[in-house]
């Protein structure tokens, strides 16, 4: 089963990449009120049980994929 890990910089942390993208969008008349740039990690976990796969993915994410000081994460089951 594949689990996707969406990692975003926390709101209170200055997101320099997001700011750079905002700047370019503004320069091309596609203004947005905010843009935040994160990471997407896909884990192929050798589990068929969804709950077990999510538990494993959470452990892996907390082990190294995200830094709780500056980031938040969300897990999703990849259906296809």
């Amino acid at each position, binding site marked *: 089963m594949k689990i996707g890990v969406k990692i975003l910089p926390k709101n209170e942390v200055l997101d*320099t990449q997001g700011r750079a993208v905002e700047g370019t969008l503004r320069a091309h008349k596609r203004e947005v009120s905010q843009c935040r740039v994160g990471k997407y990690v896909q884990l192929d976990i050798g589990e068929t049980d969804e709950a077990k796969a999510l538990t494993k993915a959470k452990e892996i994410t907390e082990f190294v994929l995200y*830094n709780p000081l500056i980031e938040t994460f969300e897990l999703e089951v990849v259906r296809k």
Partner: protein
Amino acid sequence: MKKIGIVRFLGTNCDRDIWQAVEMVGLKPEWLWYENQFQVNDYSALVVPGGFSYGDYLRCGALAAKAPVMKSVGEAAVKGVPVLGICNGFQILCESKMLPGVLVRNEKRKFIDRWVELKPEAKTKWGADKPMRLPIAHGEGRFYAETDELKRLWDQDQVWLTYKENPNGALDDIAGVSNAGKNVCGLMPHPERAVAEWMGGSDGRVILENLLRI
């Protein structure tokens, strides 16, 4: 004479500089390879040098923090052995939770490479009791910690060095911090690149000479 262990990862690139700086003050350096653990008692101090370990993938220092060698560095830190992290080494020590906080992208998004003036704020095992002028070279050197954590760092004298003029947006102008025991220290500037006048300055020597007294 006990040795100074210098940790090398794939992508470390300030290792030869710190090796020569250690020899220059009359101490004996020895390489520590990232795949191996080591006998903590064989070393009087450890240095995690700068560079781009693991190509800065995922987050700076995040993957290096999980390498086998860091398990031994962690044991040494607990035993009170002085550990110094420079630049990427600082990022690695933060990611391995031996030091508080984290280093994020510079405020203005640019890699910066220049000399900075530093002010010592607290006493640590790595010394520096006078203002210093040292070079910096980093893209992700902006020190960040949550507000209450920052306050705790100041209260417990864990803020080691601050910039006179903040180059990267670091919170509270922080250039270097220590752990609660004051034996593990990290800084973004490069003391090993300022150990002789021909390099443009020799203020960095103070930090290494401090090891002679350990």
